């Protein structure tokens, strides 16, 4: 896929672009002495730290560069690792920083004239283990009858105006801030209240593909 030629729309986005041109925005979180602390509660520590070190102006900036259709185009089912939509080296070079130099921090890419999406799991460095380049091939080896379910619907609240539940599993997607804030975020899932950092104070998981459980007394 060629980089989009789309120009940046509104003045606000332009301002954001000027602010972040070519610089890494999301800082890398320093690791704690105790590895356990990073591991428990779905790596919740990264969320608090990311919130603390990411500038407000970045959290609340938007670009409209990515939308949900494009997001799912790169996936085979909800939650599958997205393919790489831009030219990348064919084989793993051993230079892990090739991907993470952009995707750990986000910011603006002059090369692709787009804001860069941030990975929710920058601690996983062997990117090609899960993410492969999306290439145009002349002919498929064989067709495939693959089908999957609809992606989770947005805006699911338990009652009018209440905070939507988290519709997806948090495994490898525990850092809300990475995908739901900033100019690299998919426009439909960018949040409008990025000044709040304690996400799971209001949003709790209710995975849409799992049955809804009901409390019943044993007695």
């Amino acid at each position, binding site marked *: 896929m060629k980089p989009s030629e789309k120009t940046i729309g509104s003045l606000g986005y332009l301002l954001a672009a000027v602010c972040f041109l070519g610089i890494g925005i999301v800082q890398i979180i320093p690791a704690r002495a105790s590895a356990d602390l990073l591991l428990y509660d779905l790596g919740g520590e990264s969320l608090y730290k990311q*919130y603390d070190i990411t500038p407000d102006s970045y959290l609340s900036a938007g670009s409209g560069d990515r939308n949900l259709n494009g997001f799912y185009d790169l996936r085979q089912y909800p939650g599958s690792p997205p393919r790489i939509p831009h030219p990348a080296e064919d084989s793993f070079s051993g230079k892990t920083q090739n991907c993470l130099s952009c995707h750990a921090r986000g910011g603006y890419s002059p090369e692709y004239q787009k804001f860069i999406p941030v990975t929710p799991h920058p601690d996983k460095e062997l990117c090609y283990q899960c993410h492969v380049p999306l290439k145009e091939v002349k002919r498929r080896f064989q067709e495939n009858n693959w089908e999957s379910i609809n992606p989770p619907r947005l805006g699911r609240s*338990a009652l009018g*105006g209440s905070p939507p539940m988290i519709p997806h599993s948090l495994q490898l997607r525990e850092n809300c801030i990475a995908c739901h804030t900033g100019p690299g975020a998919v*426009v439909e899932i960018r949040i409008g209240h990025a000044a709040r950092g*304690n996400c*799971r*104070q209001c949003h*709790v998981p209710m995975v849409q593909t799992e049955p809804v459980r009901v409390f019943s007394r044993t007695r």
Partner: protein
Amino acid sequence: MNLDRRSFLKCAAACSAMAAAGSIFPGISFADWKKQEGASGMITWKKAPCRFCGTGCGVLVGVSGDRAVAVKGDPNCSVNKGLCCVKGYHSVQALYGADRITTAKVKRDGKMVEVPIKEALDIVAAKIKETIDKHGKNSVAIYGSGQWTIPDGYVASKLFKGCLGTNNVEANARLCMSSAVTGFMTSFGIDEPMGCYEDIDHANVFITWGNNMAEMHPVLFSRILANRKRRKDVEIIDFATRSTRSSQASDKSILFKPQTDLAVANAICHEIIRNNWVNWDFVNKHVSFHKGKTNIGYGLEDKFQFADQEEPLTFDQYKAFLDDYTPEKVEKISGVPARDIKYMAALYGDPIKKVTSFWCMGMNQHTRGTWINNLVYNIHLLVGKISTPGSGPFSLTGQPSACGTVREVGTLTHALPHGGVANAEDRAMAEKIWDLPAGSIDPKPTYHTVEMFRALDRGDIRFIWIQVTNPMVTLPKLKRYREGALKEDRFVVVSDVYPTPTTDVADVILPAAMWIEKEGLFGNSERRTQHWEQIVPPPGEAMSDTWQIIEVARRLGFEKQFPWSETEYIGKIWEEYRRFHEGPKHNMAPYTVLKERSGVQWPFVNGKETRWRFNPVYDPACDKGRDFHFYGQKDNRAWIWARPYEPAAESPDKEYNFWLNTGRVIEHWHTGSMTMRVPVLYNAVPSSYVEIHPDDAADLGVVNGEMVKIISRRGSVTMPASILGRGVPPRGQVFVPFFDERYLINEVTLDAFCPISKQPDYKKCAVKLEKA
């Protein structure tokens, strides 16, 4: 479906709006909640305090027809400024659980049968009379809650302490914050925090003492996080026995061995004195030094008695007492590196930094709960960091009206709305306001909560009325008290909104109106009184707890004391109650003001709220011309107490080799009788679990989700293991949330309590584990 033209148009408009949204945002669609039939589509918003914790967030409840349909944070409420937590946002769903109790039930031939509520109230009144006639006035008791509204607790106290003349009035807040009360009373001579939530916007250092604020007081914790992000000169120290969300969010997480907070607090004071970080001007003018009894016991035996004996100390004697608590010595007791103790002392001692300490159940549910409260006050008093914006010790509460109803109304055996039963003037004041003959109130306190249920087991109490609480999940060493309640010749009345293990032991169940189904008032952690009007009607025959008590009181012949009409009783009760607190130290706002505002802080004097007590700039009760005035104590000073480290009532040994700690998670509140019935909250955490350190789990041969049997000398419970889940205890400790009635962890816990506050320690006992 039958559509008239008007509703068709409405539907068409809504559909096209949805279609439009869908074309802009592919993938978007709307929730699949059941739509209210015949709804106009209009919502009216009514203010209320949140039903759940002691933070006291203001919420706006959205009403359509006669149903609550939505919630938003109240932007006019300074507590939360428009933000809630996940429980608050879904709180109104707790009204509509399918198994709501809507009719009264009475046990007949071993079975609960439905009866009209009037008949059930007749039975309750007759049983009270019969029991008093047969066994004396102290054989009947009422056990309420920090979720009682202020009028609920007030009429309970008036009926039992005033009219019936028994001090058998207790509330579950005894299990939740009585150590905070005795801490305030011994250090300051007057109850409730000197500071307020606005401290969060001024402090540079937050030290949380055994307090997982990220989950238990999330709205306040978010305010801390936002301040840290915005101001950059803010740090958070999480001082705890286990790693939690709060540890993850903190700048430094310091773990200590259970019970050793006593030693660490003394070591911090030792360091402050050694480095001469003492604020001498403050100490010389406003502090006096004291000691009490040591080796004070644990209350494990029935009819345990303890009275502390205060002796004055000089500063030099206090300093000599601290010689046992050098950071190096305390490192050996607590497992906290001496450098971390010195670091905390340096933060408290830094004259530039404003320091706020927060705590809740970790310090209160402690067999030396009063002492550890005193010791944290000592730190703040030595450096003079108190009663000023951003600096102060802040005791958080767990229930929405633990302060309002239990501490302020005095629904504890020794207390009255003003003062205590042992004080003749306080009794005379209550008898006058309650229009009772002199001598109606018994000067002798009877049973604190644990002893009250022991008395029920022994047969000293034969009748107990339980309102708005679930003791058959929450009492420690539960088996004894459940079996006691089920004994022949015990009569248990339970007022509640859902079936619980407590209604399971009831002889009469009264259907209660919940929260916004009645008018009421709560009082939160920062001395804020919050009023709400009735917003939706209660289901079936459900009746407010206040009105249930009034109905029973009238059946017992006390019409004169309970004369109010059903339409205006809350306002009348409030104005009567307010008379107890007249004066600059505790004046409460009038009913008309409370109705209008999203909470008002007391003392409310000359139309102004008091944010920082004991500081003349803010507190009208202070003498003019002083820089501080600690007017609660007779010497007009705050008291520093020499309180030693003493071990827990039960520590792990060779056989029972683990510490057991219990507590909460953000999604569930208390025993889960409300939150388990809210789909979002239940699905987020559908079961309790036991948190085990990964290495201990490996030793046991248990993986995540496998069943583990937790055994103590009292009992056992088998539940799923959680490894690297919400929190992680250190090796040799386990943690269990108590919200799930299907896994009664209190079968295992110990009923040891602080001899001064009589509050049990739910955070420490010894257990062993087996793979089940």
